[in-house]
């Protein structure tokens, strides 16, 4: 029994640390949805780009992810801006059908380009900076702690920008009321472009940090799983609230790791699949009974 509790709390701790990256990745999705009302189905592909940024920066320049995150952010914002101008700008008033398909196609384009440029193989790198011993509960590599701290810093600076910055406030105004914001003289198109590129920037940055958790899992098709996880987390946090999403990320990390340990106790089932099943079950239940999210404000 004692063994179980040790393992359980160790898993929860790891889940919470991973949850910070989950939160960051979902903030991007949530920001784009709350401003543009577009679900970015190509979300995971952008994270994959971030993972490759981390890989190449480490491989070529020796930059660890906590430094290459700035490059990832810049790459993401550029990509986001380009895709907004080329595609999304023309679809802001279109039906879900077209935006879902368009973002999915962008995802495929990114995945296939990555495969074309860098091949289909799994890649990875290891950044050895020591570890923290917490016997008997867990041994946590310092890299993961840095990832936790970085994502909190990014989230907090975004929060400050939203609350204090001029353009941040404009984004909040558009989130609340598109037409009202237009009447107040806010350049809604400009805000769309800004939110889309910041959203993609956050997504790519989170993919960058993710490499600290999946040391050898970098490949062109790694993103699909994270798209689906981000959906669940976004719904958990209320879909159109980036802050809800960040905290829901932690919650999801806890739920994921906790239920994995618990399902492992039941004989005759696959704990990995059941954990995923439970996540989607949760998604449906929340959509049904509390569509504003567990952490939604309203």
């Amino acid at each position, binding site marked *: 029994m004692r063994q179980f509790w040790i393992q359980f709390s160790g898993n929860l701790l790891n889940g919470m640390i991973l949850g910070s990256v989950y939160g960051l990745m979902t903030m991007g999705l949530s920001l784009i949805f709350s401003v543009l009302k577009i679900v970015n189905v190509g979300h995971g592909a952008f994270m994959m780009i971030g993972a490759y940024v981390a890989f190449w920066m480490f491989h070529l320049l020796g930059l660890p992810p906590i430094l290459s995150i700035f490059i990832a952010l810049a790459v993401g914002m550029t990509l986001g801006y380009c895709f907004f101008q080329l595609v999304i700008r023309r679809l802001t008033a279109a039906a879900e059908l077209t935006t879902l*398909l368009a973002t999915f*196609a962008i995802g495929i384009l990114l995945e*296939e380009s990555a495969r074309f440029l860098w091949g289909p193989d799994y890649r990875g790198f290891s950044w050895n900076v020591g570890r923290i011993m917490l016997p008997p509960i867990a041994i946590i590599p310092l890299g993961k702690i840095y990832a936790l701290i970085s994502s909190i810093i990014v989230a907090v600076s975004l929060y400050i920008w939203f609350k204090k910055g001029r353009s941040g406030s404009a984004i909040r105004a558009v989130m609340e009321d598109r037409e009202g914001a237009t009447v107040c003289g806010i350049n809604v198109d400009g805000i769309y472009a800004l939110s889309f590129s910041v959203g993609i920037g956050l997504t790519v940055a989170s993919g960058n940090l993710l490499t600290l958790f999946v040391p050898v899992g970098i490949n062109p098709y790694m993103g699909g799983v994270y798209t*689906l996880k981000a959906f669940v987390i976004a719904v958990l946090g209320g879909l159109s609230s980036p802050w809800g999403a960040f905290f829901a990320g932690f919650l999801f990390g806890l739920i994921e790791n906790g239920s994995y340990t618990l399902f492992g106790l039941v004989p005759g089932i*696959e704990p990995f699949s059941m954990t995923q099943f439970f996540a*989607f079950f949760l*998604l449906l239940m929340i959509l049904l009974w509390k569509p504003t999210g567990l952490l939604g404000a309203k």
Partner: protein
Amino acid sequence: MNRLEKFYPLFPVYFLYGALFLFGQYTKGMWQAVALAAFYAALGQAFNVFLGMTGYVDFGYVAFMALGAYGMALTVSGLYAVTWLGGGMILVGLLAAAVFSGCLSVAVGAIALRLRGAYFAIATVGVNEGFRFLLEGIKLWGGSEGIVISSKLREAFGTDGASAISTFWADVFVFLIAAFAAFLTLQYMRSRIGYALAALRADEDAAQVIGVNTTKYKIIAFITSSALGGLIGATAWTLKLTYVFPAEAFAIHYTVEAIVIVILGGAGTLMGPVAGGILYAALKYGLGVTFPGLQLLILAPVIIAIIVVVPEGVIGVLKAKVRGTALEKFIV
């Protein structure tokens, strides 16, 4: 409008299916490509009943095809030893496929159809993935190893019979399902269901206010579309490939392909899915032959360009062109 005139729009649709079938039969080595085109056309036609008519995006549509595939696989593995059934076993399997996916669609419809727009799309993705992981998690129906029926088909129909089923009859069934789906689509369009759905698609709240029971018609379209999807899964996957694996049967990219086909042809049109399916198959097959391994890299920007430039699809454009001419009655 006389009795026959009502069916004019089916002529060009059936003409395309007939031409496709004959082309496959009389051109050497093209049957597989034609079967692919028929699969895509049928998929589009079945999906269009819900997506095209209601405007709701079911992002988990492939779950219904998967359940149909399981319905057929379970029937064959359960009944292959019952000799007096003969070919009737396939019919039982088709029925099971329709019932399986129909039941799931009732359950999903009751829950998810209360949601709209993006929320509906996300909920249906959740159903698709959740169901797949449940199958794998509790190891139901073979779990992640799926069901393989090739030996059972051989036992029931002999080696030649089994190979005829998977190389020819499965594809014929797909053609028939596509034709049936087109017929149903036209019936729906010309009835109260179609008018109600058209109102719903334009403005759901307004439709409710004027007394249209939107929930009822949405569910009718949803169940029809799902059951047709189940039949496609049962024939184009289980009978043709002789196996069902959850990782393949629940793959989200089939849903996306279905959306591409419907948009390419024109959402909510009768002829759109046929045209879209054939175009998409030709594009994919052609790119696969000329640029092996790069087809998706080329296809993705093409899809994006189509959405941006002609969101109403091929038939949508054609419909606008023939408005007011004698052809108007044929292109719907």
